[in-house]
């Protein structure tokens, strides 16, 4: 990130955005920490998920499937399927970042909705690189801090169901999914997928119905490929994490109907 370009003012603005997104995501991390511990994971397991997996939607899905009695396989598989969009972010970012070796591994770890959104919203390559790293690091630090605080806090509660904490994960998913529900197709896919999943609940092991939902999505995607112009869109930072509302990396209007983000947060 050696940028000799005269953009100190622009750089400060990008940094403000990065920190703002990080703070909003940190607040979201609080609820993840609490929900994870309420689902039966230990403090260590909860914190390692945020450090190693580092993808909000995937983390929420993983802990709630485990909490509901699902198998490790279905929990991990659902998390990985939800994280597949990060691969598409990497495709967009690899040319901009131009990193190799350990730097590429570090960049991969912080390739998430937020860092991609801020990076792709910039107009120069230097700003795009700076935006990616600043947002990635800011979100990584604050998401993990939020997770730790939320997990410690929830650990102090005796019986989370009394506080309605078991309703937190579905509510979080509603907030996550809302920006994606534009047009008829998302609703069609959502209703069929959810219907198939719910109908299969009594007949298959816990956790498996969600994988049936994935099969529905794959079937639709293969039958009706994206239009040629439909590049894998940048995430919409106003997703779940932006819930704080304070951070608006702007420019995120591109591809409003594409994979806006969030299956996960970070």
């Amino acid at each position, binding site marked *: 990130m050696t940028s000799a370009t005269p953009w100190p003012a622009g750089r400060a603005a990008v940094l403000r955005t990065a920190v703002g997104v990080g703070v909003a995501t940190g607040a979201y991390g609080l609820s993840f920490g609490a929900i994870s511990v309420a689902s039966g994971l230990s403090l260590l397991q909860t914190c390692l998920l945020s450090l190693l997996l580092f993808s909000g*939607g995937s983390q929420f899905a993983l802990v709630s499937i485990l909490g509901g009695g699902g198998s490790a396989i279905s929990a991990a598989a659902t998390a990985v399927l939800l994280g597949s969009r990060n691969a598409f972010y990497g495709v967009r970012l690899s040319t901009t970042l131009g990193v190799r070796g350990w730097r590429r591994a570090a960049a991969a770890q912080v390739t998430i909705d937020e860092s991609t959104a801020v990076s792709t919203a910039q107009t120069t390559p230097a700003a795009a690189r700076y935006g990616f790293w600043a947002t990635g690091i800011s979100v990584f630090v604050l998401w993990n801090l939020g997770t730790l605080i939320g997990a410690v806090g929830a650990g102090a509660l005796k019986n989370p169901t009394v506080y309605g904490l078991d309703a937190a994960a*579905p509510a979080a998913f509603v907030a996550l999914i809302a920006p994606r529900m534009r047009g008829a197709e998302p609703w069609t896919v959502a209703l069929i997928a959810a219907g198939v999943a719910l109908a299969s609940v009594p007949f298959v092991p816990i956790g498996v119905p969600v994988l049936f939902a994935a099969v529905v999505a794959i079937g639709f995607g293969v039958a009706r490929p994206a239009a040629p112009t439909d590049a894998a869109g940048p995430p919409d930072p106003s997703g779940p994490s932006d819930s704080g509302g304070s951070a608006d990396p702007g420019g995120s209007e591109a591809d409003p109907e594409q994979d806006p983000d969030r299956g996960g947060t970070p």
Partner: protein
Amino acid sequence: MIWAAVLAGSLGCFVLKYAGMSVPKRILADRRVQKVAALLPIALLTALILIQTFTTGKHLVVDARAGGLAVACVAVLLRAPFLVVVAAACVATALIRLWT
């Protein structure tokens, strides 16, 4: 068992992120692959919402969580911040349990 999920999920998600930066672009540029990637979160999250709200174990049930989900949907329609959506759903669910 929880550890297996934590480690496998973490490894799988990292591999996907790393692959995106390393795999030949034409594979991920495939329009079917793109469409599937766009639809997967929608299908998975909707299924998770309904399963976590309307099932206990392998049984379909309607209980206080349904009220929490309804409140969450209203909060999202009102464009409430993320934490408000989650907190409102928790409070609603707890209150319904208290009163029933």
